[in-house]
């Protein structure tokens, strides 16, 4: 029952629509729409929750309690914050490019939401199970660079410009180790389809066969979301808030929430590629698959947050050097070794 909770809801909706006598194509379109809206709502609520979680994690690691006044245990803190930000005036700098300036925070959520359409949250729980799922995800996710750049450029401020230039440099150069890290997994699984990759991990998670690839992917992914220790983009002590400097109110909140949605994307991706997706470890099948997926995802999100509150920010030259001199060669070596290993196993007859 619980296992197929969401699949059951979709089936129920389908049969309900079938009873109305409308054409099957329209029914399917409505079901798909409902799925996508459900994912949208889920992501937005989750982004609010993650802001709260981040503040709690930060507080706990600094021997504080964190937000605890608004709502039970402070759970409504981010809701209150967003309510306040919505009520604020949107200030547009005098020399800003108005259209692009306003468009950037609106569009920043688009790649993130598009990416979530292909993520399988549980058994048969992907809205769309695309056969080039991983490729689609990587291609769309890297689009968000553009919107950071739009925001930074349109603000017509030196801090925004420097920040957005850093975004572009950082995200483009970390895209490479990210993809190369995933390549080892894709070589073993032999597919770009997410459900196939998860199915290939039924017995052994890829984190055990590809540990270096996992580290490379995770490091690059943290850099890709502009999180500490790679948060040069919004290095507060240097360039105020990077591309967000000129934004206020809800426009800023959109960038802020998009950051957390992006963390969710990369952690969901890491779960799918390395932690066996929705597969239950140790044969604990009685817990629904989607619960396992979220447990793994949140464990990774916790690690991302822990990284932020542990490490100091690195320098720009260190950032670039680390990507091009360490991660990329390591990822290439990993692919090379994986290829050799696969050939050896094939020769043995595994």
């Amino acid at each position, binding site marked *: 029952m619980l296992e197929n909770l969401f699949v059951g809801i979709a089936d129920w909706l389908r049969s309900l629509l079938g009873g109305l006598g409308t054409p099957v194509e329209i029914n399917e379109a409505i079901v798909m729409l409902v799925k996508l809206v459900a994912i949208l709502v889920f992501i937005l609520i989750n982004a609010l929750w993650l802001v709260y979680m981040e503040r709690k994690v930060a507080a*706990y690691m600094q021997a504080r*309690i964190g937000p605890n006044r608004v709502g039970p245990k402070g759970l409504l803190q981010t809701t209150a914050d967003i309510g306040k930000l919505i009520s604020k005036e949107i200030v547009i700098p005098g020399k800003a490019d108005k259209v692009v300036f306003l468009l950037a925070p609106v569009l920043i959520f688009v790649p993130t939401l598009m990416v979530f359409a292909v993520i399988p949250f549980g058994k048969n729980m992907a809205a769309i199970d695309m056969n080039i799922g991983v490729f689609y995800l990587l291609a769309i996710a890297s689009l968000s660079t553009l919107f950071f750049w739009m925001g930074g450029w349109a603000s017509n401020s030196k801090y925004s410009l420097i920040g957005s230039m850093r975004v572009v440099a950082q995200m483009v150069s970390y895209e490479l180790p990210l993809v190369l890290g995933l390549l080892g997994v894709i070589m073993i699984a032999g597919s770009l389809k997410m459900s196939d990759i998860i199915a290939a991990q039924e017995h052994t998670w890829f984190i055990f066969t590809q540990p270096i690839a996992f580290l490379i992917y995770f490091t690059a992914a943290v850099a890709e979301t502009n999180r500490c220790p790679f948060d040069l983009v919004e290095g507060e002590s240097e360039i105020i808030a990077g591309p967000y400097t000129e934004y206020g109110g809800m426009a800023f909140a959109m960038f802020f929430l998009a950051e957390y949605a992006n963390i969710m994307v990369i952690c969901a991706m890491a779960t799918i590629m390395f932690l066996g997706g929705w597969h239950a470890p140790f044969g604990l099948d009685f817990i629904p698959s989607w619960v396992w997926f979220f447990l793994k995802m949140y464990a990774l999100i916790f690690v991302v947050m*822990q990284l932020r509150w542990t490490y100091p920010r690195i320098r720009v030259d260190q950032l670039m050097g680390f990507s091009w001199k360490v991660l990329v060669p390591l990822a290439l070596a990993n692919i090379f070794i994986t290829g050799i290993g696969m050939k050896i196993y094939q020769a043995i007859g595994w």
Partner: protein
Amino acid sequence: MFGQGLIKGLQITWKEFWAKKFTVQYPEEQHPVPERFHGKFVLDVDKCIACGLCANACPNKVITIEKQKVGKKQYMTGYIMNIQYCLFCGLCVESCNKDALHYSKDFNMNQYFYRDIPLVLVKREAPAEPEEEEQPAAKAEARPKAKPQAKAEKPAEPAANSEVAAGKVPGKEGE
């Protein structure tokens, strides 16, 4: 080994995550206040003899004492501290001969209105007649004794404090 420091850092934050939190959620819970804390003043009115040493000791002229003579004794009708000027140095508490003025551990003296800031420790009317502090047996002796003395001082008294002393009960007790 490369990356050892990174792991060590993560271990520290992980340990801190489960460590005891230092936050004291103020209105609900409080830090213990130290023994000799300089908080809100408390005056033991029965001990106070209205000598005015504390008012003299105060560097900021915070303390205002209003007193009247009732019978032979000084009777304090008002002890007001303009606490907004107080620096909590403690000279008034030190100077008190009768050990009547104390600090309490209450540090919450903020007020919404400015007029509420002065700390009124005593505000009362002086009795028209000196109170009997002796034993009931001695009462009878004390009374006639005190009366003539009060009478003797009468000429001086009305000039100073006639309003309060006379205002309340002029005709009730015969003079």
